[in-house]
Protein backbone atom coordinates (compact mmCIF):
# COMPACT_ATOMS: atom_id res chain seq x y z
CA UNK A 1 0.00 0.00 0.00
CA UNK A 2 1.55 3.27 -1.02
CA UNK A 3 1.16 6.30 1.24
CA UNK A 4 -1.28 9.08 0.32
CA UNK A 5 0.07 11.44 -2.32
CA UNK A 6 2.45 8.80 -3.63
CA UNK A 7 1.52 8.04 -7.21
CA UNK A 8 2.96 4.52 -6.97
CA UNK A 9 5.54 2.76 -9.09
CA UNK A 10 5.64 1.99 -12.77
CA UNK A 11 5.71 -1.75 -13.14
CA UNK A 12 5.94 -3.17 -16.64
CA UNK A 13 5.75 -6.90 -17.29
CA UNK A 14 5.32 -7.78 -20.95
CA UNK A 15 5.36 -11.54 -21.43
CA UNK A 16 4.85 -11.47 -25.16
CA UNK A 17 4.03 -8.97 -27.90
CA UNK A 18 3.45 -10.21 -31.41
CA UNK A 19 2.60 -8.30 -34.54
CA UNK A 20 1.52 -9.49 -37.95
CA UNK A 21 3.96 -8.50 -40.63
CA UNK A 22 2.78 -7.24 -44.00
CA UNK A 23 3.39 -10.73 -45.39
CA UNK A 24 0.95 -12.13 -42.81
CA UNK A 25 3.55 -13.78 -40.61
CA UNK A 26 3.46 -13.45 -36.84
CA UNK A 27 6.61 -11.82 -35.54
CA UNK A 28 7.60 -11.70 -31.88
CA UNK A 29 8.62 -8.14 -31.03
CA UNK A 30 8.94 -8.27 -27.25
CA UNK A 31 9.40 -11.33 -25.05
CA UNK A 32 9.74 -11.31 -21.25
CA UNK A 33 10.45 -7.61 -21.12
CA UNK A 34 10.06 -6.42 -17.53
CA UNK A 35 11.23 -3.40 -15.58
CA UNK A 36 10.15 -1.32 -12.62
CA UNK A 37 10.64 2.31 -11.63
CA UNK A 38 9.89 3.87 -8.25
CA UNK A 39 8.22 7.31 -8.19
CA UNK A 40 10.52 10.02 -9.50
CA UNK A 41 13.01 7.64 -11.09
CA UNK A 42 14.19 8.03 -14.65
CA UNK A 43 14.58 4.81 -16.57
CA UNK A 44 16.11 4.51 -20.00
CA UNK A 45 15.47 1.75 -22.48
CA UNK A 46 18.59 1.44 -24.56
CA UNK A 47 18.60 -0.87 -27.52
CA UNK A 48 19.54 -1.26 -31.15
CA UNK A 49 17.22 0.48 -33.58
CA UNK A 50 14.28 -1.65 -34.66
CA UNK A 51 14.37 -3.79 -31.51
CA UNK A 52 10.86 -2.80 -30.42
CA UNK A 53 11.56 0.11 -28.07
CA UNK A 54 8.78 2.25 -29.51
CA UNK A 55 6.35 -0.67 -29.37
CA UNK A 56 7.21 -1.11 -25.72
CA UNK A 57 6.61 2.57 -25.03
CA UNK A 58 3.22 2.44 -26.76
CA UNK A 59 2.26 -0.41 -24.46
CA UNK A 60 3.45 1.53 -21.41
CA UNK A 61 1.39 4.51 -22.61
CA UNK A 62 -1.72 2.34 -22.87
CA UNK A 63 -2.01 2.90 -26.62
CA UNK A 64 -1.66 -0.80 -27.38
CA UNK A 65 -3.64 -3.39 -25.41
CA UNK A 66 -2.87 -6.38 -27.57
CA UNK A 67 -0.09 -8.04 -25.61
CA UNK A 68 0.34 -10.68 -22.93
CA UNK A 69 1.30 -9.26 -19.57
CA UNK A 70 0.40 -6.31 -17.40
CA UNK A 71 1.40 -2.68 -16.89
CA UNK A 72 0.89 -0.87 -13.61
CA UNK A 73 1.14 2.90 -13.98
CA UNK A 74 1.56 5.65 -11.41
CA UNK A 75 -1.73 7.39 -10.62
CA UNK A 76 -2.17 10.75 -12.33
CA UNK A 77 -1.75 12.35 -15.71
CA UNK A 78 0.35 10.87 -18.44
CA UNK A 79 2.45 12.83 -20.91
CA UNK A 80 4.43 11.69 -23.87
CA UNK A 81 6.91 13.19 -26.28
CA UNK A 82 6.77 11.30 -29.53
CA UNK A 83 9.52 10.83 -32.06
CA UNK A 84 7.89 13.49 -34.22
CA UNK A 85 6.42 16.54 -32.45
CA UNK A 86 2.80 15.51 -33.21
CA UNK A 87 1.33 18.95 -32.75
CA UNK A 88 -2.05 19.93 -34.15
CA UNK A 89 -1.03 21.94 -37.25
CA UNK A 90 -4.29 23.93 -37.19
CA UNK A 91 -3.85 25.20 -33.65
CA UNK A 92 -1.34 27.79 -32.41
CA UNK A 93 1.56 26.84 -30.15
CA UNK A 94 -0.30 28.17 -27.13
CA UNK A 95 -3.51 26.34 -28.04
CA UNK A 96 -1.60 23.10 -28.56
CA UNK A 97 -0.31 23.38 -25.01
CA UNK A 98 -3.59 24.53 -23.51
CA UNK A 99 -5.55 21.73 -25.14
CA UNK A 100 -3.37 19.18 -23.38
CA UNK A 101 -3.26 21.17 -20.14
CA UNK A 102 -6.54 23.12 -19.91
CA UNK A 103 -5.96 24.14 -16.29
CA UNK A 104 -2.57 25.80 -16.77
CA UNK A 105 -2.48 29.42 -15.59
CA UNK A 106 -0.99 32.34 -17.48
CA UNK A 107 2.00 32.62 -15.14
CA UNK A 108 2.77 28.89 -15.31
CA UNK A 109 2.57 28.96 -19.07
CA UNK A 110 4.92 31.92 -19.21
CA UNK A 111 7.36 30.19 -16.87
CA UNK A 112 7.26 27.13 -19.08
CA UNK A 113 7.68 28.86 -22.45
CA UNK A 114 10.46 31.24 -21.51
CA UNK A 115 13.30 28.83 -20.71
CA UNK A 116 12.43 26.84 -23.82
CA UNK A 117 12.71 29.98 -25.96
CA UNK A 118 9.09 29.75 -27.05
CA UNK A 119 7.74 32.97 -25.54
CA UNK A 120 7.64 34.84 -28.87
CA UNK A 121 6.21 31.86 -30.76
CA UNK A 122 3.03 31.26 -28.80
CA UNK A 123 0.74 32.62 -31.54
CA UNK A 124 2.52 30.79 -34.36
CA UNK A 125 1.19 27.71 -36.06
CA UNK A 126 3.40 24.59 -35.92
CA UNK A 127 3.94 24.75 -39.70
CA UNK A 128 5.78 28.03 -39.19
CA UNK A 129 8.29 26.52 -36.77
CA UNK A 130 11.57 24.74 -37.38
CA UNK A 131 11.82 21.13 -36.27
CA UNK A 132 13.86 22.15 -33.24
CA UNK A 133 11.21 24.64 -32.14
CA UNK A 134 8.39 22.17 -32.78
CA UNK A 135 10.16 19.61 -30.60
CA UNK A 136 10.44 22.19 -27.85
CA UNK A 137 6.70 22.80 -28.09
CA UNK A 138 6.13 19.06 -27.74
CA UNK A 139 8.32 19.10 -24.62
CA UNK A 140 6.48 22.13 -23.25
CA UNK A 141 3.15 20.40 -23.83
CA UNK A 142 4.34 17.34 -21.95
CA UNK A 143 5.64 19.42 -19.04
CA UNK A 144 2.47 21.53 -18.93
CA UNK A 145 0.23 18.64 -17.92
CA UNK A 146 2.37 18.07 -14.78
CA UNK A 147 2.53 14.38 -15.46
CA UNK A 148 3.17 11.68 -12.91
CA UNK A 149 4.47 9.54 -15.75
CA UNK A 150 6.49 11.03 -18.61
CA UNK A 151 7.31 8.94 -21.68
CA UNK A 152 9.98 10.12 -24.08
CA UNK A 153 10.42 8.40 -27.43
CA UNK A 154 13.76 9.56 -28.84
CA UNK A 155 12.80 13.14 -28.01
CA UNK A 156 16.05 14.62 -29.28
CA UNK A 157 16.65 12.54 -32.38
CA UNK A 158 17.67 14.40 -35.58
CA UNK A 159 18.52 17.63 -33.77
CA UNK A 160 21.95 19.13 -34.18
CA UNK A 161 24.45 18.79 -31.33
CA UNK A 162 24.27 22.08 -29.39
CA UNK A 163 20.47 22.24 -29.60
CA UNK A 164 20.10 18.64 -28.48
CA UNK A 165 22.35 19.34 -25.50
CA UNK A 166 20.39 22.45 -24.56
CA UNK A 167 17.08 20.59 -24.68
CA UNK A 168 18.62 17.72 -22.76
CA UNK A 169 19.50 20.15 -19.98
CA UNK A 170 15.94 21.50 -19.90
CA UNK A 171 14.66 17.97 -19.74
CA UNK A 172 17.01 16.99 -16.92
CA UNK A 173 16.07 20.12 -14.97
CA UNK A 174 12.34 19.49 -15.35
CA UNK A 175 12.57 15.83 -14.37
CA UNK A 176 14.74 16.60 -11.35
CA UNK A 177 12.59 19.52 -10.18
CA UNK A 178 9.25 17.74 -10.42
CA UNK A 179 10.60 14.29 -9.64
CA UNK A 180 8.40 12.69 -12.26
CA UNK A 181 8.68 9.01 -13.14
CA UNK A 182 10.16 8.99 -16.62
CA UNK A 183 10.82 6.41 -19.29
CA UNK A 184 13.26 7.45 -21.97
CA UNK A 185 13.70 5.44 -25.12
CA UNK A 186 16.81 6.07 -27.16
CA UNK A 187 19.79 4.57 -28.89
CA UNK A 188 22.15 7.35 -27.80
CA UNK A 189 24.41 6.09 -25.01
CA UNK A 190 25.57 9.55 -23.97
CA UNK A 191 22.01 10.82 -23.58
CA UNK A 192 21.17 7.84 -21.42
CA UNK A 193 24.13 8.31 -19.11
CA UNK A 194 23.36 11.99 -18.64
CA UNK A 195 19.62 11.57 -17.99
CA UNK A 196 18.83 8.20 -16.45
CA UNK A 197 18.93 6.67 -12.96
CA UNK A 198 18.33 3.20 -14.35
CA UNK A 199 19.57 1.96 -17.66
CA UNK A 200 17.84 -1.09 -19.08
CA UNK A 201 19.85 -2.54 -21.92
CA UNK A 202 17.66 -4.37 -24.42
CA UNK A 203 18.54 -7.24 -26.72
CA UNK A 204 17.72 -7.27 -30.40
CA UNK A 205 14.39 -8.74 -31.48
CA UNK A 206 12.47 -10.11 -29.64
CA UNK A 207 13.53 -7.51 -27.09
CA UNK A 208 14.09 -8.36 -23.44
CA UNK A 209 16.15 -6.69 -20.71
CA UNK A 210 19.64 -8.16 -20.81
CA UNK A 211 21.11 -5.95 -18.14
CA UNK A 212 20.27 -3.18 -15.69
CA UNK A 213 22.72 -0.48 -14.65
CA UNK A 214 22.13 1.93 -11.79
CA UNK A 215 23.53 5.41 -12.24
CA UNK A 216 24.31 7.07 -8.91
CA UNK A 217 22.95 10.55 -8.45
CA UNK A 218 23.59 13.37 -8.76
CA UNK A 219 24.27 13.09 -12.44
CA UNK A 220 25.60 16.62 -12.80
CA UNK A 221 28.61 15.70 -10.72
CA UNK A 222 29.44 12.57 -12.65
CA UNK A 223 32.96 12.76 -13.96
CA UNK A 224 34.23 11.49 -17.27
CA UNK A 225 35.75 8.32 -15.75
CA UNK A 226 32.45 7.24 -14.28
CA UNK A 227 30.69 7.92 -17.56
CA UNK A 228 33.28 5.88 -19.41
CA UNK A 229 32.94 2.97 -17.03
CA UNK A 230 29.15 2.93 -17.52
CA UNK A 231 29.63 3.05 -21.26
CA UNK A 232 32.02 0.13 -21.03
CA UNK A 233 29.50 -1.91 -19.04
CA UNK A 234 26.82 -1.19 -21.64
CA UNK A 235 29.17 -2.36 -24.37
CA UNK A 236 29.96 -5.48 -22.39
CA UNK A 237 26.25 -6.30 -21.94
CA UNK A 238 25.63 -5.84 -25.62
CA UNK A 239 28.33 -8.23 -26.71
CA UNK A 240 27.06 -11.03 -24.46
CA UNK A 241 25.76 -13.97 -26.41
Amino acid at each position, binding site marked *: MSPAGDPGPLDVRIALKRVKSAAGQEVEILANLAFRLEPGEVGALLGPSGCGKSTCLRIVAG*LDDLFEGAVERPAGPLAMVFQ*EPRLLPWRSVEDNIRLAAPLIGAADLEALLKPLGLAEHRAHFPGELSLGLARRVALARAFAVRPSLLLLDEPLVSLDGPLALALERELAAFVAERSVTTVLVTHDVGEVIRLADHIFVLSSRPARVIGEIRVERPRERMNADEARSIEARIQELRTLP
Partner: protein
Amino acid sequence: MRLFSLGALGALWIVAAHFGDPRRLPGPVAVFAAMEKAAASGELFAAMAITMARVAAAFTLAMALGSALGYAMGRRALVDRLADPWIVVLLNLPALVIIVLLYIWAGLNETAAIAAVALNKLPNATVTIREGARALDPALDDMSRVFAFGPWKRLRHVVLPQLAPYIAAATRSGLSLVWKIVLVVELLGRPNGVGFEINEAFQLFDVALLLAYALPFTGAMLIVEALVVQPFERRVSRWRPRPA
Protein backbone atom coordinates in the same frame (compact mmCIF):
# COMPACT_ATOMS: atom_id res chain seq x y z
CA MET B 1 -11.06 37.46 -66.10
CA ARG B 2 -14.12 35.78 -64.59
CA LEU B 3 -16.19 38.88 -65.31
CA PHE B 4 -15.00 38.90 -68.89
CA SER B 5 -15.97 35.24 -69.27
CA LEU B 6 -19.40 35.96 -67.78
CA GLY B 7 -19.75 38.97 -70.08
CA ALA B 8 -18.98 36.80 -73.09
CA LEU B 9 -21.78 34.45 -72.07
CA GLY B 10 -24.16 37.42 -71.85
CA ALA B 11 -23.06 38.69 -75.26
CA LEU B 12 -23.64 35.26 -76.77
CA TRP B 13 -27.15 35.31 -75.31
CA ILE B 14 -27.90 38.73 -76.84
CA VAL B 15 -26.59 37.71 -80.25
CA ALA B 16 -28.44 34.37 -80.22
CA ALA B 17 -31.67 36.06 -79.10
CA HIS B 18 -31.29 38.69 -81.81
CA PHE B 19 -31.03 36.21 -84.65
CA GLY B 20 -33.22 33.47 -83.19
CA ASP B 21 -36.92 33.02 -82.56
CA PRO B 22 -37.84 35.38 -79.67
CA ARG B 23 -40.39 32.85 -78.37
CA ARG B 24 -37.75 30.17 -77.98
CA LEU B 25 -35.01 32.44 -76.67
CA PRO B 26 -36.11 35.89 -75.51
CA GLY B 27 -33.42 38.53 -75.10
CA PRO B 28 -32.28 39.97 -71.76
CA VAL B 29 -34.75 42.87 -72.00
CA ALA B 30 -37.78 40.56 -72.20
CA VAL B 31 -36.44 38.37 -69.38
CA PHE B 32 -35.80 41.36 -67.12
CA ALA B 33 -39.28 42.65 -67.81
CA ALA B 34 -40.75 39.28 -66.80
CA MET B 35 -38.51 39.25 -63.74
CA GLU B 36 -39.69 42.72 -62.75
CA LYS B 37 -43.30 41.68 -63.11
CA ALA B 38 -42.82 38.55 -61.01
CA ALA B 39 -40.87 40.53 -58.41
CA ALA B 40 -43.50 43.28 -58.23
CA SER B 41 -46.25 40.76 -57.51
CA GLY B 42 -44.06 39.19 -54.80
CA GLU B 43 -44.38 35.77 -56.40
CA LEU B 44 -40.70 35.61 -57.34
CA PHE B 45 -39.48 36.18 -53.80
CA ALA B 46 -42.09 33.90 -52.25
CA ALA B 47 -41.11 31.10 -54.62
CA MET B 48 -37.41 31.67 -54.01
CA ALA B 49 -37.86 31.74 -50.23
CA ILE B 50 -39.79 28.48 -50.24
CA THR B 51 -37.25 26.79 -52.49
CA MET B 52 -34.34 28.10 -50.42
CA ALA B 53 -35.93 26.73 -47.27
CA ARG B 54 -36.27 23.33 -48.91
CA VAL B 55 -32.66 23.46 -50.11
CA ALA B 56 -31.48 24.36 -46.60
CA ALA B 57 -33.54 21.64 -44.90
CA ALA B 58 -32.60 18.87 -47.32
CA PHE B 59 -28.94 19.93 -47.42
CA THR B 60 -28.61 20.09 -43.63
CA LEU B 61 -30.29 16.73 -43.21
CA ALA B 62 -28.16 15.05 -45.87
CA MET B 63 -24.89 16.55 -44.64
CA ALA B 64 -25.56 15.68 -40.98
CA LEU B 65 -26.61 12.10 -41.62
CA GLY B 66 -24.11 11.59 -44.44
CA SER B 67 -21.19 12.90 -42.38
CA ALA B 68 -22.08 10.75 -39.38
CA LEU B 69 -22.47 7.65 -41.53
CA GLY B 70 -19.36 8.40 -43.58
CA TYR B 71 -17.30 8.90 -40.43
CA ALA B 72 -18.53 5.63 -38.94
CA MET B 73 -17.79 3.82 -42.21
CA GLY B 74 -14.32 5.28 -42.48
CA ARG B 75 -13.44 4.36 -38.92
CA ARG B 76 -15.08 0.94 -38.50
CA ALA B 77 -14.50 -1.76 -41.08
CA LEU B 78 -17.64 -3.63 -39.97
CA VAL B 79 -19.92 -0.61 -40.50
CA ASP B 80 -18.26 -0.06 -43.86
CA ARG B 81 -18.93 -3.63 -44.99
CA LEU B 82 -22.54 -3.48 -43.80
CA ALA B 83 -23.44 -0.08 -45.20
CA ASP B 84 -21.39 -0.02 -48.36
CA PRO B 85 -23.81 -2.02 -50.58
CA TRP B 86 -26.68 0.29 -49.52
CA ILE B 87 -24.63 3.33 -50.42
CA VAL B 88 -23.72 1.88 -53.79
CA VAL B 89 -27.38 1.14 -54.55
CA LEU B 90 -28.39 4.64 -53.46
CA LEU B 91 -25.59 6.23 -55.49
CA ASN B 92 -26.73 4.49 -58.64
CA LEU B 93 -30.47 4.90 -58.18
CA PRO B 94 -31.62 7.71 -60.50
CA ALA B 95 -32.80 10.80 -58.63
CA LEU B 96 -36.14 10.61 -60.38
CA VAL B 97 -36.79 7.07 -59.14
CA ILE B 98 -36.17 8.06 -55.52
CA ILE B 99 -38.44 11.09 -55.85
CA VAL B 100 -41.32 9.20 -57.45
CA LEU B 101 -41.07 6.29 -55.02
CA LEU B 102 -41.11 8.59 -51.99
CA TYR B 103 -44.10 10.52 -53.36
CA ILE B 104 -45.95 7.23 -53.86
CA TRP B 105 -45.03 5.84 -50.44
CA ALA B 106 -45.30 8.96 -48.30
CA GLY B 107 -47.75 11.03 -50.34
CA LEU B 108 -47.33 14.37 -52.08
CA ASN B 109 -46.18 16.23 -48.98
CA GLU B 110 -43.29 18.30 -47.69
CA THR B 111 -41.70 15.43 -45.74
CA ALA B 112 -41.53 13.24 -48.82
CA ALA B 113 -40.10 16.11 -50.88
CA ILE B 114 -37.31 16.95 -48.45
CA ALA B 115 -36.56 13.29 -47.71
CA ALA B 116 -36.27 12.59 -51.43
CA VAL B 117 -33.76 15.40 -51.95
CA ALA B 118 -31.78 14.47 -48.85
CA LEU B 119 -31.67 10.84 -49.90
CA ASN B 120 -30.26 11.86 -53.26
CA LYS B 121 -27.46 13.84 -51.66
CA LEU B 122 -26.77 11.50 -48.73
CA PRO B 123 -24.61 8.83 -50.44
CA ASN B 124 -22.52 11.53 -52.06
CA ALA B 125 -21.76 13.16 -48.69
CA THR B 126 -21.16 9.77 -47.13
CA VAL B 127 -18.50 8.61 -49.57
CA THR B 128 -16.68 11.95 -49.44
CA ILE B 129 -16.57 12.06 -45.64
CA ARG B 130 -15.63 8.36 -45.56
CA GLU B 131 -12.50 9.16 -47.57
CA GLY B 132 -11.69 11.87 -45.06
CA ALA B 133 -12.24 9.57 -42.09
CA ARG B 134 -9.95 6.96 -43.66
CA ALA B 135 -7.23 9.55 -44.05
CA LEU B 136 -7.32 10.65 -40.39
CA ASP B 137 -3.83 10.65 -38.93
CA PRO B 138 -3.39 7.79 -36.40
CA ALA B 139 -0.43 9.65 -34.89
CA LEU B 140 -2.71 12.50 -33.79
CA ASP B 141 -5.18 9.92 -32.50
CA ASP B 142 -2.47 8.50 -30.25
CA MET B 143 -1.52 11.97 -29.13
CA SER B 144 -5.09 12.84 -28.15
CA ARG B 145 -5.43 9.57 -26.24
CA VAL B 146 -2.18 10.07 -24.32
CA PHE B 147 -3.21 13.58 -23.31
CA ALA B 148 -6.69 12.33 -22.36
CA PHE B 149 -8.74 14.47 -24.75
CA GLY B 150 -12.46 13.95 -24.21
CA PRO B 151 -14.76 13.08 -27.13
CA TRP B 152 -15.85 16.67 -27.74
CA LYS B 153 -12.32 18.07 -27.65
CA ARG B 154 -11.16 15.33 -29.96
CA LEU B 155 -13.96 16.00 -32.42
CA ARG B 156 -13.50 19.74 -32.46
CA HIS B 157 -9.72 20.05 -32.40
CA VAL B 158 -8.44 16.82 -33.89
CA VAL B 159 -11.06 15.25 -36.17
CA LEU B 160 -13.01 18.15 -37.69
CA PRO B 161 -9.95 20.16 -38.81
CA GLN B 162 -8.73 17.06 -40.66
CA LEU B 163 -12.16 16.52 -42.22
CA ALA B 164 -12.63 20.19 -43.15
CA PRO B 165 -11.41 19.91 -46.76
CA TYR B 166 -13.68 16.91 -47.29
CA ILE B 167 -16.62 18.70 -45.69
CA ALA B 168 -15.97 21.70 -47.94
CA ALA B 169 -15.85 19.45 -51.02
CA ALA B 170 -19.09 17.70 -50.00
CA THR B 171 -20.71 21.09 -49.37
CA ARG B 172 -19.75 22.45 -52.75
CA SER B 173 -20.88 19.46 -54.79
CA GLY B 174 -23.82 18.96 -52.43
CA LEU B 175 -25.25 22.44 -52.67
CA SER B 176 -25.36 22.39 -56.46
CA LEU B 177 -26.79 18.87 -56.51
CA VAL B 178 -29.44 19.65 -53.89
CA TRP B 179 -30.81 22.77 -55.50
CA LYS B 180 -31.09 21.10 -58.88
CA ILE B 181 -33.00 18.18 -57.40
CA VAL B 182 -35.20 20.45 -55.29
CA LEU B 183 -36.50 22.01 -58.52
CA VAL B 184 -37.38 18.57 -59.90
CA VAL B 185 -39.15 17.63 -56.67
CA GLU B 186 -41.15 20.85 -56.81
CA LEU B 187 -41.98 20.33 -60.42
CA LEU B 188 -43.31 16.84 -59.75
CA GLY B 189 -45.29 17.27 -56.60
CA ARG B 190 -45.33 20.65 -54.85
CA PRO B 191 -47.81 23.50 -55.32
CA ASN B 192 -45.17 26.25 -54.89
CA GLY B 193 -41.50 27.10 -55.22
CA VAL B 194 -39.24 27.93 -58.15
CA GLY B 195 -39.61 24.44 -59.64
CA PHE B 196 -43.39 24.76 -59.65
CA GLU B 197 -43.23 28.17 -61.33
CA ILE B 198 -40.87 26.82 -63.98
CA ASN B 199 -43.35 24.03 -64.67
CA GLU B 200 -46.06 26.68 -65.13
CA ALA B 201 -43.86 28.59 -67.52
CA PHE B 202 -43.20 25.36 -69.41
CA GLN B 203 -46.92 24.63 -69.73
CA LEU B 204 -47.47 28.15 -71.09
CA PHE B 205 -44.34 27.88 -73.25
CA ASP B 206 -43.20 31.14 -71.64
CA VAL B 207 -39.40 31.00 -71.87
CA ALA B 208 -39.01 34.57 -70.59
CA LEU B 209 -40.88 33.65 -67.39
CA LEU B 210 -38.85 30.45 -67.08
CA LEU B 211 -35.57 32.36 -67.25
CA ALA B 212 -36.97 35.06 -64.96
CA TYR B 213 -37.24 32.42 -62.23
CA ALA B 214 -34.14 30.41 -63.07
CA LEU B 215 -31.61 33.26 -63.27
CA PRO B 216 -32.22 34.97 -59.91
CA PHE B 217 -32.21 31.59 -58.21
CA THR B 218 -28.92 30.58 -59.82
CA GLY B 219 -27.54 33.97 -58.82
CA ALA B 220 -28.67 33.45 -55.23
CA MET B 221 -26.90 30.08 -55.06
CA LEU B 222 -23.71 31.63 -56.44
CA ILE B 223 -23.91 34.26 -53.71
CA VAL B 224 -24.32 31.56 -51.05
CA GLU B 225 -21.24 29.84 -52.44
CA ALA B 226 -19.23 33.08 -52.44
CA LEU B 227 -20.40 34.33 -49.04
CA VAL B 228 -20.61 31.09 -47.06
CA VAL B 229 -18.65 28.23 -48.60
CA GLN B 230 -15.55 30.12 -49.70
CA PRO B 231 -15.05 32.06 -46.44
CA PHE B 232 -15.46 28.77 -44.55
CA GLU B 233 -12.75 27.19 -46.68
CA ARG B 234 -10.44 30.14 -46.15
CA ARG B 235 -11.00 30.04 -42.42
CA VAL B 236 -10.28 26.35 -41.98
CA SER B 237 -7.14 26.50 -44.10
CA ARG B 238 -5.66 29.63 -42.55
CA TRP B 239 -3.06 27.58 -40.65
CA ARG B 240 -1.51 26.25 -43.85
CA PRO B 241 1.75 28.02 -44.63
CA ARG B 242 1.15 30.07 -47.77
CA PRO B 243 3.79 30.43 -50.43
CA ALA B 244 5.23 33.92 -49.99
